[in-house]
């Protein structure tokens, strides 16, 4: 697919610089995209990926450098101008209108008219055509919000390509999709590539980048590291280029527990059922053990976590802590028994973005103590400071609003908040989602260290290699049931993948 070499780039950015105050978010970066090619932009958070995307989609102006499209210099001041020139963007969070119909979501803004008024009939027909081109069979008159997020994402792509698209920017399009849905998305990407569209695919998932991308541009700290053909770049080299340090930082955790079947079970769940969708789940969590949870999106990963931490009510089954049956009927009760939960939705159910790092860390402790036993401010700072140092939260500024930190550091702030409660069981739901590679490794290592200090951890992740690396044992979820719990030493990513996929999809 790199037959485009030698052709003229469709889009070319030369010497691009974007400054925020004194800091250069993008410093003299050159970047090019060829027609009929999938290009990936890689880098840690803060490397300048989103700034670059914003520069080519007209959201941010260039302070220096030029942008050419088809060899002609262009300058976009609004996203609409870029769109008119054929550059469409699909954002990470689905940015559509859940209350309107699928057809309107695709065509609003250039809706077909008859006799001066919007024709719903023409609009539905046109939308059906566009969806059919993508191989999607969807009722265009149905309300968008009634469809799953993955379908909504595909509708967003349908909207993006329904114009005369030449450059399609996909910013983290797969972060909320499961394997099947990713395959579906990739089929569409390949089709667009065959039509000669230049596609910019930004993702944290290395696997996906290697599967779909022809070319990779790596950024680090706002500067260009280089442009490579994907097949010629080893994964380890790519990570090295992104991080600027050796990949041997991936510590493999000492696994002691597997060989000690007598390690006391701290929390045990038997035949746990909870709406929606968890049935007959058995979990045993030893002291100092990390149990990874692997499963597809919709297999009940989050539901399991919520059932174990008192957020969802149990319909059936029983949970014992140190052999004693407990009734976890609220998060508050669970916390007092030492069971804490970190949500996958960092923004909506975790970090209070406008409050300071200090407040975010001390919040739960204070809530747990109650209003009458207020911590002295000095004590609060001391406590927060110690966690900031212990977890390596950067920048180590207690008074900064937590929302301004990078994803990885926000995650650490959430961890600090929970750890300050001195829990016995930590249930982490997707703690590394949307986090850059470096911070991901730090969080993984941290979980290992916590477990070595006797904390029991349930570690949920969509990335199978991560689950394997972090977990002592892995519980495999399928359609709301734990189908198997195996020692991770006995598995490879491939064998785990086979277990996670349902039997009739084991064509891998």
């Amino acid at each position: 697919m790199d037959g485009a070499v030698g052709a003229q780039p469709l889009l070319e950015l030369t010497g691009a610089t974007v400054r925020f105050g004194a800091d250069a978010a993008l410093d003299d970066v050159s970047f090019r995209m060829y027609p009929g090619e999938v290009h990936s932009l890689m880098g840690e958070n803060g490397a300048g990926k989103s700034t670059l995307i914003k520069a080519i989609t007209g959201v941010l102006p260039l302070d220096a450098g030029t942008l050419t499209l088809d060899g002609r210099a262009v300058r976009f001041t609004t996203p609409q101008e870029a769109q008119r020139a054929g550059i469409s963007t699909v954002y990470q969070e689905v940015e559509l209108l859940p209350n309107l119909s699928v057809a309107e979501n695709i065509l609003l803004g250039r809706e077909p008219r008859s006799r001066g008024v919007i024709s719903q009939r023409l609009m539905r027909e046109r939308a059906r055509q566009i969806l059919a081109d993508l191989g999607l069979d969807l009722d265009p008159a149905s309300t968008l919000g009634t469809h799953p997020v993955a379908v909504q994402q595909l509708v967003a792509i349908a909207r993006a390509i329904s114009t005369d698209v030449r450059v399609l920017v996909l910013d983290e399009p797969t972060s909320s999709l499961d394997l099947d849905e990713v395959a579906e998305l990739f089929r569409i990407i390949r089709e667009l590539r065959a039509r000669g569209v230049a596609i910019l695919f930004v993702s944290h998932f290395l696997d996906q980048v290697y599967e779909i991308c022809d070319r990779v541009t790596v950024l680090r700290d706002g500067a260009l590291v280089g442009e490579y053909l994907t097949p010629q770049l080893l994964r380890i080299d790519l990570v090295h280029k992104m991080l600027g340090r050796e990949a041997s930082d991936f510590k493999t955790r000492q696994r002691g527990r597997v060989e000690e079947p007598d390690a006391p079970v701290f929390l045990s769940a038997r035949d746990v059922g909870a709406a929606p969708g968890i049935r007959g789940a058995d979990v045993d969590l030893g002291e100092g053990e990390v149990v990874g949870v692997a499963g597809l999106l919709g297999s009940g990963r989050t539901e399991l976590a919520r059932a174990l931490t008192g957020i969802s009510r149990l319909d059936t089954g029983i949970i014992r802590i140190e052999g004693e049956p407990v009734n976890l009927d609220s998060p508050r009760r669970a916390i007092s028994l030492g069971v804490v939960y970190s949500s996958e939705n960092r923004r909506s159910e975790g970090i209070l973005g406008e409050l300071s790092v200090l407040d975010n860390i001390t919040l739960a402790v204070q809530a747990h103590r109650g209003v009458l036993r207020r911590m002295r401010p000095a004590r609060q700072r001391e406590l927060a400071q110690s966690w900031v140092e212990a977890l390596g939260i950067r920048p180590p500024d207690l008074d900064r609003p937590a929302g301004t930190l990078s994803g990885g550091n926000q995650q650490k702030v959430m961890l600090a908040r929970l750890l300050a409660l001195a829990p016995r069981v930590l249930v982490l739901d997707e703690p590394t989602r949307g986090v850059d590679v470096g911070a991901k490794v730090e969080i993984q290592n941290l979980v290992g260290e916590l477990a070595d200090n006797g904390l029991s951890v349930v570690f949920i992740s969509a990335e199978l290699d991560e689950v394997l690396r972090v977990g002592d044992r892995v519980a495999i979820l399928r359609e709301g049931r734990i189908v198997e719990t195996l020692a991770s030493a006995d598995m490879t990513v491939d064998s785990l993948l086979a277990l996670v996929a349902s039997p009739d999809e084991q064509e891998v």
Partner: protein
Amino acid sequence: MSTTTTEAVRVERPTSRVETFLGRHAAMIPTFAAVIILIVLLAGAEAFLRGDFITARNLSALLLDNAYLLILAVGMTFVILTAGIDLSVGSVMAFTGILGAQLLVSGQPVWVAVPAMLAGGAAIGLLIGVLVQYFNVQPFIASLAGLFLARGLAFVVSLSSIRVEEPAVLWLQQTRFRLGDWYLTPTGIIALLTVAVAAFVLHLTRFGRTVYAIGGNEQSARLMGLDVARTKVAAYVISGFCGGLAGLALTAYSGAGYPRNGIGTELDAIAAVVIGGTLLTGGRGYVLGSLIGVLVFGTIKTIISFMGAEQSWMQIIVGALLLLFIVVQRVIVSRSERRR
């Protein structure tokens, strides 16, 4: 990763007609519920009053008595669909009413007085819209400021009631287009026309769809290249304009302008819109629903006065209905979210 050949798409087509319908029109359910409530109310009153209630006279009067409220509710529907609120309309109605009466009494012709009323209402709407859109003021606060401003202006115009003897206004007041025992008044026609125009604008123009889009997700609407700023301001201007039009209808109905008119009427309008199935969170609802809401509201009022009960019962019943509807809407919204 998984293999690359996927041919069929897993998007499930709705299997039954019911599912297709729900997929398309779930937002209509609260409005249907309002229709059912209306039918139950009418039938109940008919049974209770032994056939004296559902008469051509009563039903015709229902529209006449509530024409001003219907006009306000139409304007309010625009604002609520953008997830805003307009508390000023009751006062705007009083201000424009007394303004028009004063202009007419001081000898201005109708073609000056009526446009002045409409422009006055629209101007207050514009002020609120600009505050909301460009100064980022909460709609609640911005329209509260509009409420006090309009009420104050009404008292500036006159402290007491002004009778209107102008022939054109008398015509509005007294004309009855009859068909058997049924009749329509010019104000009723104006109100129904307002509904029709609003329904047309909301469903068949880009402006109308943008109103819905803003209520769905303002940020998305902006990224989709829709003109969010202008549309949002325009929604408040429309609401203010409807306030002016309601001022005209009320002046014609009562034969006078009075600066204390319409205290709390904005809340009646909001109640009617909500009972008619429009979500206060915006983006879902129909202007025809607001028509139903106003009719429910008016029917309750009529029933109470027929039964000779205390007027306070009116408020208790409307309050209870409102509560019921908001709960029903919550359930519908949370169910449709769970389906995703």
